[in-house]
């Protein structure tokens, strides 16, 4: 277990700058998730930390030691890949022991570690099989086992669950969380799946076009997104956005005036400024009679039942608004409705800089 510190990291493929001046401090024992759409540079960043990708500038420290110029195997890391990357001609035992044999680890130590990892991952019975005789979930376990036996200080995961079906993915997610708890290891984990990120991470770094947009704990990220991009990317369905104008402590959106006395501004905004108001679907409800909350007229478009709750879609002027509703309530809805907003849960963004106000 040791901390990782990335400072000023940059990397370009020709003219394309895939990583721009990245700073990423990861504390010992932390589970950091790099989250972002494809092409945002998250895998490149992970590969750079692993030493598999040359970098153009910046430093990488692992456990307080500058490893920027070191070979991957000399950095004290282990890595799990999306395609598992098991050596197809070796048995599971051979796969697990390969790295240790390369480093000429004593035989007894190798066997001890394999036994330990196999028990931890429940792959004892598979040790003599070839990777081709394993299911996807079993292969993933072996790939994790191969990382575990290294007893590395830092574990790197590159979209390890993407190739699994939905059910297995949920199971493995729980498994990974358990492993992190049991080992207390430092983990850096790349994914484009925000559910995975939210459930696993102690901190999430949301990336876009080679930059980190926000690096914060999942709750913080969800409740107070730092940029318009983070607000739109994290959360499913996405946050509702409506343009408005800031007038004397309220936001005017069409006919609706939203009071902001509960909103914590990061800086004092200018009156008369254009803003984008964001509100999550679960904070939009049907207005009741003489509702004190700000409300807006809308017409019902359609309902998406999701089991635990139903997603209602409404047209409100030029905007489409999603609301997460209890199924019983949703069943009775049609025609014109009035939607109420939970005002203590809104986010305001500057339409130009896209930063949170």
């Amino acid at each position, binding site marked *: 277990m040791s901390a990782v510190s990335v400072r000023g990291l940059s990397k370009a493929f020709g003219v394309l700058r895939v990583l721009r001046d990245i700073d990423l401090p990861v504390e010992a024992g932390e589970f950091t998730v790099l989250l972002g759409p494809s092409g945002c540079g998250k895998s490149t960043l992970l*590969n750079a930390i692993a030493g598999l990708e040359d970098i153009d500038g910046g430093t990488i420290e692992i456990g307080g030691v500058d490893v920027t110029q070191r*070979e*991957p*195997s000399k950095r004290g890391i282990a890595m799990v890949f999306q395609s598992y990357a098991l*050596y197809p001609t070796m048995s599971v035992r051979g796969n697990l022991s*390969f*790295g240790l044999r*390369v480093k000429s680890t004593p035989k007894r130590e190798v066997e001890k570690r394999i036994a330990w990892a196999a028990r931890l991952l429940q792959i004892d019975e598979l040790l003599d099989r070839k990777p081709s005789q394993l299911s996807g979930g079993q292969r993933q376990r072996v790939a994790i086992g191969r990382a575990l036996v290294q007893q590395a200080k830092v574990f790197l995961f590159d979209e390890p669950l993407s190739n699994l079906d939905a059910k297995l993915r949920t199971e493995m997610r729980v498994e990974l969380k358990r492993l992190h708890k049991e080992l207390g290891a430092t983990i850096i984990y790349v994914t484009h799946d925000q559910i995975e990120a939210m459930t696993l991470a102690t901190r999430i770094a949301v990336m876009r076009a080679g930059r980190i947009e926000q690096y914060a704990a999942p709750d913080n990220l969800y409740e107070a997104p730092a940029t318009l991009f983070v607000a739109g990317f994290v959360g499913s369905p996405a946050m509702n956005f409506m343009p408005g104008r800031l007038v004397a402590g309220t936001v005017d959106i069409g006919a609706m005036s939203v009071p902001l006395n509960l909103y914590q501004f990061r800086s004092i905004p200018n009156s008369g400024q254009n803003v984008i108001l964001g509100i999550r679907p679960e904070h939009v409800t049907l207005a009741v009679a003489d509702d004190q909350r700000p409300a807006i007229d809308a017409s019902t478009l359609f309902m998406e039942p999701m089991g635990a709750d139903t997603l209602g879609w409404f047209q409100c002027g030029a905007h489409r608004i999603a609301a997460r509703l209890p199924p019983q309530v949703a069943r009775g809805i049609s025609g014109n409705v009035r939607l109420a907003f939970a005002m203590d849960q809104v986010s305001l963004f500057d339409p130009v800089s896209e930063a949170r106000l």
Partner: protein
Amino acid sequence: MREATHQARIGRIGLYVLLIWTCLFFSIPLLVVIATSLKTSDEVRTFSIVSLPMTPGFAAWAKAWYSACTGLNCGGVHVGFWNSVRILLPSVIISVLVGSVTGYALSHWRVRGANIIMLFLLLGAFIPYQVILYPLVKMFSTIGIYSSLPCIIAVHVLFGLPVMSLLFRNFYAGLPEELVKAARIDGAGFWRIFAWVMLPMSVNILIVATILQTTGIWNDYLLGLIFAGRDNMPMTVQLNAISTTSTGVIEYNVNTAAALLTALPPLLIYFFSGRYFVRGITAGAVKG
């Protein structure tokens, strides 16, 4: 329905008749050669070329192997056979091994100027080698190994490398790069990854490469004639010498037997590993 199956059956029969005729037509030369090699000299002279041998025997084969004459040498083609083997084994082993390492390096390691190397490999694979025969002769005589066993082996390795490298490069490029990354993180270097991870996965392509090189080198005539030197003439060169010797009566039965003996190794390879051979051709053709 019934009508349709009836017609389909007639179609099938027609198809088979055509295929069998085609087969026969194309195998006539081979059959004639085999038949002739089993005849005695008298029979060859008296009867038609397509007649079957009346008392088939391997006398001509034995003569071709042990005592057929090329000029004043009457040692038979077995001399050339062993020469061919001595040329073949090191040429095939070296070109396949070096080609596989080159292909592995080009596909999985960031080699500076890899694209330019690829371009030269493609050029090397497609420029007819007759074009550079003369400069090669000059080169080898300058360094003093012209007309020797090392010389002909070097020539075969040189001419084999472009195709071998491309073949292996294409094969290794199809393997996930994460395998190499995983092995690097496990601490393995260039050679260890090659020997422990890549080579064990390359059995099929190694067989394909070996077959391609073996048939190519065994069937070579021109390079052997030019570079091998008098003492190392491969079997093909000797065969040509036997069949063009014009002293006395031309022994067609011995000539055909010698031809069959020369063609036997590649023929056997085609028979026993045709499946790999086809795979190798397509691998080279589609992706090359």
